[in-house]
């Protein structure tokens, strides 16, 4: 856990995702990433438990007779205790149904960033796009994240659309022209940019959590177990002997089809899509893009859909978990 930091990076990019909070920092020309699960699990307070956690340096906080273990250790702890992890965010924004969301997300952000020293670097954090067809109000979510950062001493703060951040992070070679998709825990964020200018962006309310919840409900497993199975073992190969893997495959396919259909609708119904002049690349990122074979599966569905916008290639970001944070960092550095 970080407390007050001595180093002052030039800028920080922060991916505030439903599933993970990832920071990217530029220091002396090098990018450095740090990530924590955006989750926590609570256990009843006891002195022994508290001192064990402290000794093992497991990030936790104590409040109202409860110990909240947050960040990366929360998943392992939840698995050990046979409990579900709790999420400060849902569907890309703060979880209104989680009473401890503010306190816990504050802890997690601090564990990733630490408190700012006297000289505050520029920080750019990601915000989701509203679901397609909706003008969702993100004001509260965005203002709360700003408040949290301000409380930690970061005063030069701005936000960036998550899909656009993926484009800034991965599509430098096409002059930041193309489609960026972040397959996150709560949402899949999609953006199209033309020479760095965001042309359209939207999200679909399906992501890793949708796959986990749906697969858990049909298999009778704990959601957390499904999530671990998905992250550790799942890959697209078209043949599953394991029931959980097979269920995950079904719902993954559903997510991919939802993204492609939404893309097709967006391009067909949006007047503002400029003539690109040439096919544009599409980049996949986020934790949802990690399973082996995901890129191939996505491309197959995409080619079958015959989008009105010509796609030159479908590529997987080299480090899918860090794309949004990296793009946010680049955006911060250009300020």
């Amino acid at each position, binding site marked *: 856990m970080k407390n007050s930091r001595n180093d002052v990076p030039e800028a920080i990019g922060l991916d505030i995702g439903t599933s993970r909070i990832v920071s990217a920092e530029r220091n002396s020309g090098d990018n450095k990433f740090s990530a924590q699960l955006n989750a926590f699990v609570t256990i009843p307070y006891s002195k022994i438990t508290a001192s064990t956690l402290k000794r093992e340096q497991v990030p936790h906080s104590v409040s109202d007779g409860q110990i909240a273990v947050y960040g990366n250790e929360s998943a392992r702890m939840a698995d050990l205790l046979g409990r579900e992890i709790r999420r400060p965010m849902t569907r890309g924004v703060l979880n209104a149904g989680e009473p401890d969301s503010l306190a816990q997300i504050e802890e997690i952000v601090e564990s990733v960033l630490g408190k700012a020293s006297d000289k505050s670097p520029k920080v750019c954090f990601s915000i989701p796009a509203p679901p397609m067809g909706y003008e969702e109000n993100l004001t509260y979510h965005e203002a709360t994240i700003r408040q949290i950062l301000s409380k930690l001493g970061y005063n030069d703060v701005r936000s960036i659309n998550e899909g656009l951040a993926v484009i800034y992070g991965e599509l430098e070679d096409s002059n930041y022209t193309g489609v960026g998709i972040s397959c996150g825990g709560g949402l899949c964020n999609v953006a199209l940019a033309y020479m760095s200018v965001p042309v359209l962006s939207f999200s679909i309310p399906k992501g890793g959590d949708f796959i986990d919840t749906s697969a858990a409900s049909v298999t009778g497993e704990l959601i957390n177990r499904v999530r671990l199975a998905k992250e550790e073992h799942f890959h697209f190969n078209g043949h599953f002997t394991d029931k959980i893997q097979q269920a995950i495959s079904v719902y993954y396919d559903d997510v991919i089809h939802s993204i492609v259909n939404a893309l097709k609708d967006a391009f067909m119904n*949006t007047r503002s899509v400029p003539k690109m002049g040439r096919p544009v690349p599409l980049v996949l990122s986020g934790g949802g893009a990690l399973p082996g074979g995901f890129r191939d599966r996505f491309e197959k569905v995409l080619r079958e859909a015959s989008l009105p916008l010509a796609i030159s290639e479908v590529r997987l970001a080299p480090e899918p978990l860090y794309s949004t944070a990296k793009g946010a960092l680049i955006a911060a*550095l250009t300020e």
Partner: protein
Amino acid sequence: MERTFKPPGGLTRALVEWRAGQIADPVARLRFLRHSVGDRAIFKPADLWSRIPKRTYAVFGAALFLIPVVTIGDAGRFFRRGGITQAHSTARAVTDATKPAVWLVENGERYEVWSNGLRIERRTEIASEPRAYLAFPAGKEDHGSPEPRTQPAGIVYHTTESHQAPFEESQRNRLTLIGESLLSFVREQKAYNYVVDRFGRVFRIVKETDVAYHAGHSIWGDDRASYVNLNDSFLGVAVEGQSQPAEGASPANPAQIHALRILTEMLRARYHIPPGNCITHAQVSVSPVTRLVSYHTDWAAHFPYAELGLPDNYSIPLPSMARFGFGYDPGLQKLSGGSFWQGLLHTEERVRQDASAHGTTIPRYRETLLERYRQLLNQVKAKSQTSQEKAG
């Protein structure tokens, strides 16, 4: 979320994309694009083309014709520093006709790149006192309220009058060594805001927002105001070189003239500097002791006004004479070129007419003007002292 976005037209798009492709650093590339067509763009992309006057179409067209015949490396240099030969005449035509906006493309720690190809080396950049000065209203210098300002009102061009080696390839190491030594010296002295070295590289010495000690006792004036002691009010730009007025040659080589042109373009665009306020040290320098102009004589002749896209400012009557009663040494005729000498003669005639209009003799009228200068000088000194006390 849908945004209304009209992409730039084919030609603009091609140029912007091509230029962006030359920028290796992803941050600098994104910054360039955001400033060119993105959220930081000065013009909406769709408006960009329509804002360019018709006559510059030909210039853009000519530039495009050049692209395929140069190598990528050459082309990169063309955009970064501007072409010295081919681009020179075209860019001058643009300057004269349209006064194009010049904007920052890359803002790195060690250098800046501007949209007209100007590259500014920043490794020599230092701070000094913040710029703050009084502009005395023209025609009401001794009874109007001076206007406090912080933006540069103009540019004074200098030569460094430093030691020179022959400009030959065999002298490369010596030229470099002398140049570095000069940069170190002017940095220590905070002597100029910019130095253009013999290879045409532009070094920022003192930040534009701060005062460089380049002009000493000096005077200039425009339609709006008179300026006394131009360190505070004018930017100092020096060319590494020695004045050689007797030999009839410019102290600046073609690379330096090119650099001066694009630097002047940038500074004029950035601070809205009128062409008449881009003048040489010899034109502004005065000696309060001898009461004569041109105490310093750098650029008393051969300043390449035309090549910089400026009018022949040598012919402007000197405000130091017309407004403040300074005289000139007849020996200046030998030192300066014809146009500067003509400017002096025009000024002398104007002083004669003004004295007559005031019903007094020329010597008495000059005494009145010199007294005006002393009063203004006292105000300037008092302000400078107050600023220093505040800073201290």
